[in-house]
């Protein structure tokens, strides 16, 4: 079962805690918003990823199970 991270860009207000807690996967752009270097979470940083998701003050970082997006756009 793979886990993927996703950012809700509307909820995100650039607090930046996710990048502090998960620098392996998240970088901040020049305006302070998160860039996901890789959406898939490797097992080695799973705990850190969960902590980052939990720490986000606006619940903008999401962790989802599964393979991919639904087919219908």
């Amino acid at each position, binding site marked *: 079962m793979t886990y993927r991270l996703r950012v809700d860009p509307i*909820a995100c*207000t650039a*607090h*930046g*805690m996710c990048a*502090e*807690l998960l620098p392996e996967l998240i970088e901040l752009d020049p305006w302070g918003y998160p860039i996901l270097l890789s959406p898939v979470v490797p097992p080695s940083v799973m705990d850190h990823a969960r902590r980052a998701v939990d*720490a986000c*003050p*606006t*619940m903008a970082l999401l962790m989802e199970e599964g393979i991919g997006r639904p087919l219908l756009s």
Partner: protein
Amino acid sequence: MSAFFHGPALWYATRATGLVTMLLLTASVLLGILTTGRFAGGNWPRFLTVGLHRNMSLLTVVFLVLHVGTTVVDKFVSIPLTAAFIPFTSSYKEFWLSLGAVALDLLIALVATSLIRNRLGLRAWRWFHWAAYACWPVALAHGLGAGTDRSTLGVFMLTIGCAAAVTGVATWRFVGAARAGAR
């Protein structure tokens, strides 16, 4: 044994835990305001602010439980457990104790909604969390009114200090936000 329940030991414990609860609650509120104010220093990452805020809040609950426990168990003055949750049910210092009950209820709401935040959704959670700005002053007022130490200079100064800290940080946060223009 009855000396324990009738003597001053529990009373000291109530006052001590009450004081610590006030300090912890003040610290929680301060850290909460600093979180939304995006406080970050050179060696102080932002996740520390929000992490401490959460841990402080939980610690506040622990000391609050001790504070309520020692009060209820103390036989010197008879205060029923229900008075801790429902205002206007104790005969001793009815009004000031009721404030404590209100503050406790608000704190339960704050902590409970935060624990189920994921299921609640952001907007509902945020709406509840504004109650923190009601909980803290009510708790402080309870301390001043129901507490027996307010005449002690040290305790009084501590309370004023807490009030000043929160007022100061809140002003920094909200005046700064108003100047920058809220998004």
